[in-house]
């Protein structure tokens, strides 16, 4: 939920709640005030009437008085005494064709010795009218208030929050492996200025750490090449000795195999950091099928030895613009991976169609299919692989911006690349 929406939503909720609670209270208090005022009026009328009693001399005067003052009703009564009582009642108004509520005061008076029941009444405004008026006024107020909120908020978010959204956008687009530094706006709002400064600091630190780690891998791999060369050469010289026992031969052989593994590992680490450091820059238009044929040439013999058949199905030819070395490494690593995990007397099927290449080979499912592209995640520690082949594949795809997917379907591993 956006910041603006969230604020407005809370405002609306609060206002609605206020409306719900306040309307009845408002209504009741106004009603109460109104009725009180009316009752005072009624008593006032009664006192006034009593003051004029002396002037009413006969029945005729009384009737005249009633005629002039509609709210007065006098009836002769035998009930006596009549105490003052207040009550509300409704009466049909033939003119307005509706029931009109009245508030009335009943009392007893003596006019020239005759006892009368006096009823003084005042009509009260209809409840519904009052409620409607109050709710209407309140709703109008609420709506006006909300429109105000939204307008003010929008204006605020444009002006005040603008640097925040700019910072956010820049952060989203920042790529540690591509961009050098991050350029954040300098806001006049203290909080955003602090945020900008903190973020620039963080980004620079991360970038430094990233760069030094990147350089470290490349430098370390380079520096290892020479001592490895010395080590390997000394082993080969040791091997030349005339009187080597079988135990010694076995030791030397183990050392040679371990050296091979270190050499390969180091080579792949170096390759990985070279790809990361974008040292493969040149671009060339290459026919995918011919690149595939070239890579397959390297593995033809290996496939034969393992009694694995490699079939290629080129449904449509495509040319891609990429770095030739990277493409070769990409294809070779995928083929090598397929050969490694295919049982003997099986088939590796490679298909080029439209803009994609699919390599399919049967084999046992991987234990950690989500981690196959991670570094040093090797399915089985017994194989000679160094756990970097697929990491290199992924790194190439990432830097070249080509998506690669892996599926396990009907007992087969399926790697697809969409160019």
């Amino acid at each position, binding site marked *: 939920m956006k910041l603006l929406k969230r604020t407005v939503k809370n405002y609306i909720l609060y206002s609605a709640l206020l409306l719900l609670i306040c309307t009845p209270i408002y209504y009741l208090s106004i009603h109460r005030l109104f009725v009180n005022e009316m009752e005072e009026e009624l008593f006032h009328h009664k006192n006034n009437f009593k003051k004029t009693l002396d002037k009413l001399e006969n029945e005729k005067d009384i009737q005249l008085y009633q005629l002039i003052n509609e709210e007065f009703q006098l009836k002769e009564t035998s009930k006596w005494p009549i105490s003052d009582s207040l009550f509300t009642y409704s009466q049909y108004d033939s003119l307005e064709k509706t029931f009109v509520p009245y508030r009335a005061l009943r009392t007893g008076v003596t006019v020239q010795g005759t006892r009368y029941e006096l009823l003084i009444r005042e009509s009260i405004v209809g409840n519904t009218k009052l409620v409607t008026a109050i709710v209407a006024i309140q709703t109008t107020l609420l709506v006006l208030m909300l429109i105000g909120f939204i307008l003010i908020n929008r204006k605020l978010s444009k002006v005040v929050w603008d640097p925040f959204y700019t910072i956010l956008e820049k952060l989203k687009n920042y790529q540690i492996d591509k961009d050098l530094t991050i350029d954040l706006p300098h806001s006049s709002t203290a909080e955003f200025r602090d945020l900008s400064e903190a973020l620039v600091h963080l980004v620079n630190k991360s970038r430094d750490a990233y760069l030094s780690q990147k350089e470290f891998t490349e430098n370390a791999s380079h520096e290892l090449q020479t001592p490895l060369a010395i080590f390997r*050469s000394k082993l080969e010289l040791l091997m*030349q000795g005339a009187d080597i026992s079988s135990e010694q031969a076995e030791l030397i052989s183990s050392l040679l195999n371990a050296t091979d593994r270190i050499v390969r590992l180091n080579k792949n680490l170096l390759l990985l950091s070279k790809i990361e450091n974008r040292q493969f820059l040149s671009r060339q238009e290459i026919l995918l099928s011919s690149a595939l044929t070239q890579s397959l040439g390297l593995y033809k013999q290996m496939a034969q030895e393992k009694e694995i058949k490699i079939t290629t199905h080129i449904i449509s030819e495509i040319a891609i613009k990429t770095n030739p070395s990277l493409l070769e490494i990409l294809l070779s690593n995928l083929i090598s991976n397929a050969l490694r995990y295919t049982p003997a007397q099986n088939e590796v099927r490679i298909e080029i169609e439209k803009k994609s290449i699919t390599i399919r080979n049967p084999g046992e499912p991987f234990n950690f299919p989500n981690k196959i592209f991670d570094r040093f995640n090797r399915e089985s520690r017994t194989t000679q692989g160094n756990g970097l082949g697929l990491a290199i594949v992924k790194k190439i795809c990432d830097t070249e911006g080509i998506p690669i997917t892996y599926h396990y379907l009907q007992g087969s591993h399926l790697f697809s690349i969409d160019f």
Partner: protein
Amino acid sequence: MKILIVEDERELAKSMVQYLRQESYVCETAYTAQEALEKILLHEYDCILLDITLPDGNGFTILEKLKKEEKLEGVIIISAKNSLDDKIKGLNLGADDYLAKPFHLSEMGARISAVIRRKRFDGNNSISVHELTIDLLGKVTTVNNLLVDLTRKEYDLLLFLISNKNRVVSKNAIAEHLSGDAAEVFDNFDFIYAHMKNLKKKLAEANCPDYIKTVYGLGYKFEA
């Protein structure tokens, strides 16, 4: 056969010299670019092994100097960088081959022997060991002038062993020489045994003495 090794890592240079001396090569070493330039101007070499990164300069400048002096001996560049750019630059400057560290000494032996043969005989050459002859141009092997029908891998294997004559060549070096990175696919060296078995069988059938000796647990040696 005179070889100059330009390499600042003394231990590595020592190994290279020791390995090459076992064959009939005469080796000299230079640990700096300055030393290398002096030796190059004074002597003639059949092959120069040139490390690109030297303490007092770049190997490429030596290469340029050689080109200017028209003394382009067979030059093999050695580099720890294994970068394609270096390789292309080196070959463009007139180097004959490129060897990435860490290399097998036997691989180095094979490259040196190939470079020297190319230089000496203008590419039209053959190697003979008694009755065994390999025509390098036609890639044809004969024993007593009779053709031995070898596969490509068997031919490569034989040439690799002869290039490192009288020295033990490890299975590891053979696997890398024959299959490059593709050798990684295998968990063992069984495929080498198969090729070796066939090669030995074919040579024996052609009445060639058994020059290829198996060095138990380590590799093979062409003894002649």
